[in-house]
């Protein structure tokens, strides 16, 4: 219910309303980008004329569970792509554990301790669930390239992959081909694969999209659980406000490529700029 309303409001806000008239106040990140676990410093990314991310700075603390919210087109996924190296930022820099990784190749970043899941299900579709996870475990162990020719793949990462599948509740589907899984389980497989890189920082792009309310709640508690168990730092793009408000430590609100607020869930709900730009008439409902 709240889902549908929210989407309407977002679409509405985006099409008609530039929103607040005040100058978008520069939000100082609570932690300086270079000293945070994950830091983004004045990042800009343009697509031709379009400014997708606009001199954005972020500092994520160790062990934090940070939600990034914002209307469609606010630049959330572009931000993720720039952090993970799938896109190069036009300007600005990315720091991981204090050292700059802006220019590093995308495939090197998982080996430095950051991993992502995708907004749309990205899987090795013809492979089994076990093999999807095992491939990532193998890569995490052997590095980005390894000329490991003389043994069978059965001997690399199999047990670890089974453990991870167990952690996310996919044990019953180990032998199923990824493309035959129901949508919700494919999303969970995406999380499992990101976990298989053994990351310090986990970036999840709408992990509950398209899930039933029950599965959404389950996934939310799964995310909190892996964060607590493994001491991960999690950055989460999410549209489901119930999930965002219930599990995140802090929330960053993006609008038109800029950070308009970063605060605790309670404070965000009371923030007028956020109300205007994004939450709109949802106040009563929340």
């Amino acid at each position, binding site marked *: 219910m709240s889902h549908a309303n929210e989407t309407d409001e977002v679409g509405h806000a985006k099409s008609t309303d530039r929103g607040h008239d005040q100058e978008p106040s520069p939000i100082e990140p609570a932690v300086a980008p270079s000293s945070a676990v994950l830091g983004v410093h004045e990042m800009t990314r343009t697509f031709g004329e379009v400014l997708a991310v606009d001199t954005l700075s972020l500092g994520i603390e160790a062990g934090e569970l940070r939600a990034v919210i914002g209307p469609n087109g606010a630049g959330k996924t572009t931000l993720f792509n720039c952090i993970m190296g799938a896109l190069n930022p036009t300007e600005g820099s990315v720091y991981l554990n204090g050292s700059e990784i802006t220019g590093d190749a995308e495939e090197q970043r998982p080996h430095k301790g950051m991993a992502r899941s995708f907004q749309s299900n990205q899987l090795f579709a013809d492979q089994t669930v076990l093999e999807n996870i095992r491939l990532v475990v193998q890569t995490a162990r052997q590095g980005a*390239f390894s000329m490991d020719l003389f043994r069978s793949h059965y001997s690399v990462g199999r047990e670890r992959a089974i453990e991870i599948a167990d952690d996310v509740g996919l044990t019953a589907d180990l032998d199923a081909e990824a493309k035959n899984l129901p949508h919700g389980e494919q999303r969970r497989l995406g999380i499992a694969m990101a976990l298989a890189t053994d990351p310090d920082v986990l970036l999840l792009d709408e992990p509950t999209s398209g899930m039933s309310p029950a599965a959404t709640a389950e996934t939310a508690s799964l995310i909190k659980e892996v964060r607590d168990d493994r001491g991960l730092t999690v950055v989460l793009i999410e549209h489901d406000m119930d999930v965002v408000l219930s599990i995140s430590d802090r929330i960053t609100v993006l609008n038109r490529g800029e950070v308009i607020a970063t605060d605790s869930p309670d404070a965000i709900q009371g923030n007028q700029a956020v109300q205007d730009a994004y939450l709109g008439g949802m106040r009563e409902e929340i």
Partner: protein
Amino acid sequence: MSGESTDRATGGLPSMFERYKIPLGLVVLVVALRPLITSEMVLGYNAIASKMLIMMLFVAGFNLLFGYTGLLSFGHAMFLGFGIYIPAILVLNGAWVLPAGGNITFLVGVILALAAVAVYGYLLGTLIVGMGEIYFALLTLAFSQAIYFIVLRNPGELTGGSNGLTQGTLPDFVEQTRGEIAIEAFGLSLDWYWAVAVVFLLGMLALWQIVRSPFGRSLVAVSENEQLARAMGVDTTSYKIWSVTFSGVFSALAGVLLMIQNSGAAIENLSVFTSGDTVLMAVLGGVNYFFGPVVGAFSWLFVEDFLTNFELWQFPLSEVTFVTVDLSDILVYWQFLLGALFVVVVLTAPEEGIWGYIRSVASWLRKRMQQVRA
């Protein structure tokens, strides 16, 4: 049998048979192919069996790149050509301390050919794998055409131009009597088919090991979803480059065999038609499977040979024939028939091929049997 899938714990290792069925299948193939195919009833001559094995190895090498890595090479004949021409040129002319015609000269030529292909494949891969699928296909085509025209120009009278090399390209250990080739070594005489079979088996087993190794699984990851593979930390570019390299080396190995098989080097083997046939054979057989190229090359050569030679259809094939049909008017269109089969395969199951069909029919039959028994 019926409990196979239910008894097995999820995530358990496949059975020994599952894990080693490919080597087993290869041995059965090698042992059974010649008696079956060269009998009077079918094709009736020996050379076709060894030619089939050679082309199977060649197309399987090609499929490491196409089926397993997702890169379509439209110029794979160039790798075959390296294997054909380098040993032939060396044996014919000799070089420096290597006398013409010697066994050592030939072996050096083979090693040189494989090494040259490895280096060439690596450099070519480095240059072109980053360009995207279409450009990879076009650039492999362009490079192979460039090599074709260089060989055609007969530089330094080395390659024989359009005539190819027909005399003096065989090492001493190859004996030819009345068109039959034998290998004479260490006082033993080995029939050419079995010599090919040994190289074929070694080559195919090496390919199989590559495919089942962690390295090979990374190739599959690259072909299935490159974006995901990169995001999960797979250096997709390096895997592609090495796939080009390995694929080229195995294709060149097939080229060496083909040179002996044909007692020389023919420029047709370097042509764009050879490259095209390679793609067609792989797709016809089924690029998703290890045995796909094997089945594809077999079907292709069988149809080509069988249909072109088989003009009168007699039933039964004996002294007393009841029915005789003259098929010569239809069978001159064998390429059309093969083309039609190809179209059917591509339209219905582009990655499954004939081998995919055989597998689905087999698994359907197995299920039916289980139902009947239950």
